[in-house]
């Protein structure tokens, strides 16, 4: 809302510098976001919050200035720039020659009141300079004296007005009604619009002549030839105007004010003000004034318990100060015999004052928020023992653990494009779509972290990164047909590409086992469990390189190499390794606390075991056999070397196990370890055809 200072001063005395006034308004809740210069002096740019419709006018801001600075409102509101005349004519003299307009409100809910004034004999021409300058300062282009006057009063009083060319209204009739199905109107902006029965229109005897509260029609607009004008000042329903403006994609200064609510008691005053200005500036005489509909009902009073306000604000503001402060805002205040309960009747223009708390804000802001002394609450202490509260701490430590493994945290878009989903081998049908996306690039809620992570990998490789190690913790969304149920789950994604680490001593490349090791570390740390994998077919993974990740047989996620074809489609040359885990599963399988065991006091016996075995035999089967035969005494079994090459036959590899034998209660003898060690190699030989090296 733009407010020229000189116009404001017509309604209230301003005794401080513009900057000081701006500061006072800002701290009073009307934020001055800028002060611009115009030929007539400074113009304030004020941000009016949606609750303060009463401040969408010069008069409204003047009322606010008066309340905030302790000045009186000037009541001589008939001035109008340099103009001296423009006195209100309270008793129109009907001319016997003038036709009598007919006004009927059919939809009383949509239009509570309609004031029409007929002014006969106007001469259309330009409006005076002072008016044009003020309108320009408010951001409105001058058109002609009639239209300018309606705009001028809109800005001055906050009441939208419209001027019809009365001769162009069929049968001189104004009918406020709902539009008929498919009724059409060409609005002032030259666009022909199709209306629906949800919309309120002003119609003449034949057709709509204006979209009520939004915009007038071209067919009845004031032209240079107009001599008889019907001036409309009405009260339209905020919700109806808002829906109509939205449905038509048409917003105006008028609809903006009606949506937020205009002063029901100001309809007649604005009409009189405009009629007076018309007669002064465009000539003519008012011949009829019709006021149809209900007068503004009296506001119901708010019962204000002063102790409640004190408790809410944490302030000791006295009931007397409350009374005087509310009176400054034009509230009618009465108090009960105790003086502790006030009966407050807000003025008609403050439609936002409904609850006692609304008055609490008025009291706080008028005396100044800075006058309420800050204090720290003292309360009983709580250790935050709820399950929900500790969940976030667990997620934070999961993030920290990922970072400690060498992974950098990414945050990728939750909204992805259907095309990119398809390029990652994911069907968009699992993704929930937005009904109002900004663009197709971000139109679907991600069903997995894949797209975002692949994008991040590509970006970094393109920018010359030698290696990419990323993780992300984020929600993924899925639709399940046809029930319409949807899921939102927290996933942990890992992406590796290029070098895992490179320095002058050498390079370690990211590969499947690096990825598997990272996941195994997480599982070991969080769940104190072993990770198992099972080859499966994944839509995005290279065949044979995709696995399901499991703990104790329960699936917790998937991992693998991004299919080469997909990588190529993304212009990525490097192999990309991806894992995605369900965080819920990890948290459910989390081992809350450990019971510690003292390490054995008896020394272990360490033996290595090298066997040459067919590569087709899964390592895990061999390892399991070693553990089974070794039993409780084989405390630790590790693969410490794997060799493929000239020294072993084609299709075979050499595996070296490091086995640590120990007993918690005694020292093992070399002889008993030898027996056990030998039995292991015998079992490997018989079960897998393994040959001892």
């Amino acid at each position: 809302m733009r407010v020229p200072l000189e116009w404001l001063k017509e309604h209230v005395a301003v005794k401080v510098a513009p900057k000081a006034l701006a500061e006072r308004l800002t701290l009073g809740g009307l934020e001055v976001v800028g002060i611009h210069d115009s030929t007539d002096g400074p113009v304030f740019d004020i941000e009016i919050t949606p609750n303060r419709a009463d401040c969408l006018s010069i008069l409204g801001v003047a009322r606010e200035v008066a309340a905030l600075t302790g000045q009186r409102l000037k009541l001589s509101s008939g001035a109008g720039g340099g103009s001296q005349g423009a006195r209100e004519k309270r008793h129109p003299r009907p001319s016997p020659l003038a036709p009598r307009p007919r006004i009927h409100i059919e939809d009383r809910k949509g239009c509570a009141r309609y004031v029409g004034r007929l002014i006969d004999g106007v001469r259309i021409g330009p409006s005076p300079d002072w008016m044009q300058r003020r309108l320009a300062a408010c951001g409105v282009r001058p058109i002609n004296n009639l239209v300018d006057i309606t705009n001028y009063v809109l800005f001055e009083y906050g009441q939208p007005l419209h001027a019809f060319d009365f001769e162009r209204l069929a049968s001189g009739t104004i009918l406020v009604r709902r539009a008929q199905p498919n009724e059409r109107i060409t609005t002032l902006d030259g666009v022909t619009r199709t209306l629906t029965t949800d919309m309120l229109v002003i119609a003449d005897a034949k057709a709509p002549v204006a979209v009520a509260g939004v915009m007038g029609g071209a067919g009845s607009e004031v032209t240079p030839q107009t001599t008889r004008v019907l001036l409309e000042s009405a009260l339209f329903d905020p919700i109806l105007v808002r829906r109509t403006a939205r449905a038509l994609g048409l917003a105006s200064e008028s609809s903006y004010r009606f949506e937020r609510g205009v002063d029901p008691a100001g309809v007649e005053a604005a009409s009189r003000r405009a009629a007076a200005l018309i007669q002064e500036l465009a000539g003519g005489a008012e011949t009829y004034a019709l006021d149809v509909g209900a007068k503004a009902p009296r506001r119901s009073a708010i019962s204000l318990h002063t102790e409640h306000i004190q408790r809410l604000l944490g302030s000791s503001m006295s009931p007397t100060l409350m009374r005087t402060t509310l009176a400054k805002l034009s509230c009618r205040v009465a108090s009960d015999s105790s003086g502790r309960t006030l009966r407050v009747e807000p003025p008609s223009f403050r439609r936002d004052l409904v609850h006692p708390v609304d008055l609490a804000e008025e009291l706080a802001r008028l005396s100044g928020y800075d006058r309420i002394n800050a204090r720290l609450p003292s309360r009983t202490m709580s250790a935050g023992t709820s399950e929900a509260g500790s969940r976030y701490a667990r997620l934070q430590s999961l993030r920290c653990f990922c970072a400690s493994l060498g992974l950098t945290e990414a945050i990728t878009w939750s909204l992805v494009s259907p095309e990119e989903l398809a390029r990652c081998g994911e069907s968009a049908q699992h993704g929930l779509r937005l009904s109002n996306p900004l663009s197709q690039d971000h139109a679907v809620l991600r069903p997995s972290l894949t797209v975002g992570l692949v994008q991040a990998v590509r970006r970094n490789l393109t920018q010359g990164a030698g290696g990419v190690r990323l993780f992300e913790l984020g929600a993924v969304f899925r639709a399940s047909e046809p029930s319409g149920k949807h899921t939102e789950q927290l996933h942990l994604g890992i992406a590796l590409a290029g070098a895992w680490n490179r320095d002058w001593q050498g390079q370690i490349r990211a590969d499947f086992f690096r990825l598997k090791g990272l996941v195994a570390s997480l599982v070991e740390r969080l769940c104190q469990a072993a990770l198992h994998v099972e080859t499966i077919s994944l839509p995005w993974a290279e065949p044979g390189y995709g696995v399901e990740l499991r703990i104790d047989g329960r699936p917790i996620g998937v991992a693998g190499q991004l299919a080469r074809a997909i990588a190529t489609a993304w212009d990525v040359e490097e192999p990309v390794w991806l894992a995605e885990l369900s965080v819920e599963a990890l948290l459910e399988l989390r081992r809350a606390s450990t019971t510690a065991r003292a390490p054995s006091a008896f020394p272990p016996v360490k033996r290595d075991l090298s066997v040459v075995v067919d590569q087709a035999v899964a390592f895990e089967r061999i390892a399991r056999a070693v553990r089974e035969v070794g039993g409780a005494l084989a405390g630790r079994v590790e693969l410490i070397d794997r060799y493929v090459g000239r020294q072993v036959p084609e299709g075979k590899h050499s595996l070296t196990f490091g086995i640590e034998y120990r007993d918690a209660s005694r020292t093992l003898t070399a002889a008993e370890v030898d027996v056990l060690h030998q039995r292991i190699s015998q079992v490997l030989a018989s079960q897998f055809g393994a040959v001892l090296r």
Partner: protein
Amino acid sequence: MSEPAAPLQELEQLLADATGAIAQAQSAGQLEPLRVKFLGRKSRLAEIMKLIPRASPEERGEIGKRANQFKAAVESQLRERTVALAQRPTGPGIDVTLPGITTPQGRLHPITSTLGSILGLLTAMGFETIEGPELEYERYNFDALNIPRDHPSRESFDTFFVDTPSPEPKKGRLLLRSHTSPVQVRVMEQRKPPLRIVVPGKVYRPDPLDPSHSFMFHQVEGLMVDDRTSFADLKGVLDEFLRALFGANTKTRFRPHFFPFTEPSAEVDIACTSCSGVGCSTCGRKGWLEIMGCGMVHPNVFRAVGYDPERVQGFAFGMGVERIAMLKHGVTDIRLFFENDLRFLGQF
């Protein structure tokens, strides 16, 4: 010159010889023969000592003193050289100026670490961290927060709607939450006061991407409700929090504002961190930076969750995490947070 003068000169010469020989020794093994040579029973020192009884009484003292000084000097040089030799590398040595080998470093995203500082402070002040869904119903995002349909206050909350029939039509359409406030409602529906919670999380609004807007960003929401929490408490808690976050000298101001779900409502500004209130490009020449919104929970919100507004009162506040991270780290383009460029992420 009488004869006894000669031993003193000789001791001087011997010290020079010993010093040179010790300095040239390249191993502990080479030092032992030098000890024998200069200090042993058959050394020149031993012979000079034998001459002392025959010298005149006045010379006797002088020779004895000098001989002891010689002995102490040589012993000390031998000790020092032994230590020096022990510290010498045995092999060919290394170039210690070659780069160290680093372990691959991972990092937390700057939004995560900023969230971490915010939540750390609020947790210390007794707030409990709770999360809620990003996919939300109209009821929680709007209706229960006193943001009715067809009301202009909804305009401040442009929202992405999800194109799927709502599985729970009573709760309205499905949408991506446009603020973290719906979690307030969810928590209040399930718990009774007193409550002190903070809610971090992603939120979504259909704002096209530019240096200061993103359709996805993070918020932290706070809520404190009991039978007495007042606007003064709100000011106290936020003053304390902002001083802890931005420094002990941080100046704050509370400006009346409008939010449908709080009344009275305020916006909180801090004196610009770049210019301390003078006015610069960071604060748009205002001298103040808008940092968060807050207010006393609206009675209609309490009613919507089944609380009695006559018996409970409290405050809510909310802030944008990206904005705080940008101020703290001098980031001028919000998009950098979501490009995931390691050259950016590696700085935090």
